[in-house]
Structures are given as C-alpha cells and as structure tokens.
C-alpha cells in the first residue's frame, strides 16, 4: 500500500488493474480513515444492543475493540523484543537447513549477515 515503482498498469490482469487504484498514497490514507470510521462505528454500536457476555468484564462498552487494539500492539512490541534475542544470520544452520540454499544455488549470495532490512 506504500509506493508504486512506475505506476504502469498495462500488462496486468484486469482484476489487478481494478485494484491498482488503491496503490496511490492518497487512497491509502483514505482507506486508513475509512477503517478508523468503521472502528468507531463498531465501538459505538455496543450502546445499541444488549450484550450477552460470559464475564463481567465483557459488559464494558467497546472493550473487545480496545482489547484488540492493545493486544495487537502488545504482540508486536513483545515480538520485536523477542527478535532482539533470537535473531541470527540466515545461514546460521548451514548446511543443514533450507534457509539460504535456493539463493546459493541460484548464484545470488544471500545477505547472510542477517541485519539489513529489505527496503
């Protein structure tokens, strides 16, 4: 959803051409606000019906939404922390692993140092 290298759409399947409109940064931003609006609407929807929960905590309005947001962020940050501990170069288990052998067979040397993000 970020950048589009050349903006050309010819040669793509028709379905893809239809979707390629979303590639423009402006549309991505619009999508984001659409999602935000839907979320707010869903949060407000909790006031419109009677909730049947199993636990008392479920009665709090929009609790599922807030919990989802926080849990998601927590998962990501914990995983980032975990990565600090467990990350190793891609050829760490060579030659007894499949991780880089396709690249080596194809002749392109992998970024075996394993530190650089692909950008």
């Amino acid at each position, binding site marked *: 959803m970020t950048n589009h290298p050349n903006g050309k759409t010819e040669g793509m399947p028709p379905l893809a051409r239809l979707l390629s409109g979303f590639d423009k940064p402006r549309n991505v931003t619009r999508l984001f606000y659409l999602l935000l609006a839907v979320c707010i609407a869903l949060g407000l929807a909790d006031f419109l019906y009677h909730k049947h929960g199993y636990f008392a905590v479920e009665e709090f309005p929009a609790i599922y939404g807030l919990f989802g947001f926080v849990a998601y962020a927590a998962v990501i940050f914990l995983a980032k922390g975990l990565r600090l501990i467990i990350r190793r170069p891609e050829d760490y288990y060579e030659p007894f692993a*499949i991780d880089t*052998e*396709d690249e*080596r*067979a*194809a002749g392109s040397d992998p970024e075996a140092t394993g530190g650089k993000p692909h950008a």
Partner: protein
Amino acid sequence: MTDANALLLALAIPTIATFLIAASGSRPNIRDGISVVASIATFAVVLRLLESIMAGARPSVTLVEVMPGLVINFSIEPLGMLFATVASGLWIVTAIYSIGYMRGAHEKKQTRFYICFALAIAAALAIAFSGNLFTLFIFYEVLTLSTYPLVAHKETPEARAGARVYLGILMTTSILFLLVAVIWTWSLTGTMEFRAGGILEGNIDPVFVPFLLALFAFGIGKAALMPFHRWLPAAMVAPTPVSALLHAVAVVKAGVFTMLKVGTYIFGVGFLGRTGASEWLVWLAAATILIASIVALTKDDLKARLAYSTVSQLSYITLGMALANQMGIIGGSMHIVMHAMGKITLFMCAGAIYVAAHKTKVSELDGLGRKMPLTFIAFTIASLSIIGLPPFGGAWSKWYLLLSAADAGQLVIIGVLMLSSLLNVAYLLSIPARAFFAPPRGQMAHSLGAAASPSKGWEEAPLFCLVPICLTALGCIVLFFAIGGIYEYLLSIPILPETAP
C-alpha cells in the same frame, strides 16, 4: 521317509553337494547349478521336517558314541527347526545371488568358495539339529573353520588379516570359555542333553550361575556380544555373499541361536528368571545395542556400518534370552527370522551396489538411487524392517521384546530399545535417503527442481543379484502379515520342564 531319515538327509545334501561341486569345478555352469539345486533340495527336506515338527514329532538320531555319555546326537525341537528353516531357506537366495555376484565381480577360486559355502550350511544345520552340547560344540567349530577360507577369499593382506582376527576371536572364545562352560555343565549334571526347562536347576549352587552364564555368553563369540565383537567387522573383507552368509544366514545366527538354546534348554528360562543370574547380561546386551549403533553411525564404509548394525541387532536376541521370560524367547527367536530377512537384503544390496557401481562408501552413494532404484527400494524396505517399523516383519520381534521387557519390569530396557530404533533410523535410513534425494556431491540444488533431473536410465546389478534382493525385500513385508502363524509356532518352544510321566 521317516523323520529321522529326513533329518539325516537334510544334513547329507549340503555335505554331498561339496563333493559334487568340487568334482565339477571346471564347469562353472554345472557347479553353480549344483549349488542352487542342493539348496532347493535341502530346503524342501527341511520344510518336510518343519511339517512334522509342527505336527508334534520330535525326531532324534544318534550317530556315534565317542565315549560313554558323549554322543553325537541330532534331535529336533522347535527352536532348532526355526533356525534350520531360516538357514536353508536363505541359502537358496544366497546361492542364486552368489552366481551373479561372483561372476559380476570377477572373483577368483569360485569352486573353493562354493565348497566352503555348502560346508558351512551343513554345519549350520547340524548346529540347529544338535541334540546335546557336545554335538553343538563340535559343529560350532566346524562352522568357524569352514567359513575361514570364505573370509580370506580375496587372499590379499587385508583379507588375511581380517580372517586371522575372525578365526582368532571365534576359536579363542569358544575354547577358552565355551568349552570350559560345557565341561563344567557336564561335570555338574552328568549330561549334556538339551532338555525342556533346563538341566542345571538343582545341580548348581545359584551363586555360580552368573559365572557359568558368563562363560557361555562370552564363549559363544558368534553372538558378537561386546567386547568380543571385533571379528564381525573384521570379516567384512570377504565377498558380499559371504557377508550375507555370516550376518544373516549361518554364522551369527548360529551364535544367537546357541545363546537361545543354552538359555532355554540348559539353564531354563524359569531358573534364570528366579535366580536373576542373567540380570548382568541384560545390561551388557543393552550396552552392546547402543554402543554398536553409535559406532555404526560413525562408519562411512557401507559394509562396516552394516556389520556394526548386526552387532547391535544380535544383542536384541541375547537380550531376549537374558530377560528370561517366555516373551523374551519368542521375541528373540522371532528376531532371528526378521533380522535374517532384513540383513541379508541389506548385504545383498551392498554387494549389488559394489558390482554395478563399484562403490563401497556411504558418502559415495549420493544420487545413485536414480540409477539403481530397485536396489535402493529394497534397501529402504529392509532398513525399515530392521528399525522395527510396520508394516515390516521387524516390528513384531520388537513388539515381543518390548513385551518381554515389560514383563520383566525393565522400563529402562524399553527405553534402550526405543533409543536403538532412533539410532537405526539415523544410520540405516540415511543411506537410501541420500542415494535417492541428495544432490550429487559438489552440486547445489534448487528446491524448484534443479536436482530432480530425469534419470538417464537404470544401471542395476545383474539379474541374478537383483532377483534375490527383491525376493527377500518382499519377504520382509510378508513376514509382517504372516506373523500369526509364526507366533503360534514359537509358542511351542517348551519353556517349562516337561512333567515326568
């Protein structure tokens, strides 16, 4: 034909075959034909005997009385019959295989080879049918001597050295320990006969039982119990059919068969169990199983790896005896059959690889599976059987050995057997897996198919080699499904003393 005559005939056919083979040495086709015909005839007679034994007959023949009480006597009981069936049945495939191998590998002195081979089979059958310890001991030595020229067959310095170790260890242990044990037993009980339920109970101070057992266990060097196992890898210098004979058909099976026979008919399973005299042997066998497996892992020479595998597998059978209960005897004797079928396949495959591709090292086999698919499929099947996986015969013998360990309350032994299975996977299955799936050395393969190039046609060993391999590999599968009958048969091995009339 009476059963007794059939018994003598079964022994006579391979013996006579030696003379016929010697006489027709100048005409290879006739010579090889004789050895195959003799093997089939022997097997037919043995099957005829098996039928009688299953019907309850127990034929017995006394040949000569050397001294009062010291007789050469043959009498058949279920355990010996089992060994005889295995040995004579597999002689057929080995005889056919030998033709392909010896000619394909251009071996010299083939006549001597076939003579000694037939003689070894005769000795193995005599061991199987022996009615007392004396007879067994005599033919045990005959077997050792008759296989010596086979091991030294190539007459190279390595072959001679290997054969010297072979003869040295087997003769020494048998005289130093086994003979002493036999004489000791004789002096204790005044008899050497194999009797249901054993002959020692009541005649020996229980304190000495472990020592007598030790003399037997180490004396039967053919069972390759550590530390007297070195002869087996040393004998790997021999041509492959000999290795098949040593490892599957005659020699090692004669060893473990003697082990089972001594345990069942001299000590008595009940007596061993009550005195706990075989407890140490359980642990030694367990150690042998594991250590030999680990050594096998480190061997790059295909036949050496298989040899250590045999050392390990033989101790399964010793273990079955040492656990001293009925399931152990059943599991052990079942393993004689299952291991024979699996290991003979493996050795014949090793020979086929040598004949067709001149490869002897595991590390040289990468990618060979596409040239010799049938050989390696057979290798895979036999490996799975030896590991003890269904649907192959080896699974059942492992099942009964585990039951036996459970009956004896030996949870650790169950663990040992499990661990051994995993080690077997590592050192056996890696061979066909590399042959089929590893890219040839020095090449990088891409997972999207670079290595999976279409095969350039088969380059299998000669048909005389290939057919026996396929037959025994199929046998591994058949044994899994035919287990009900084998089990029923093995139940007839007498464990308890016969009640006096």
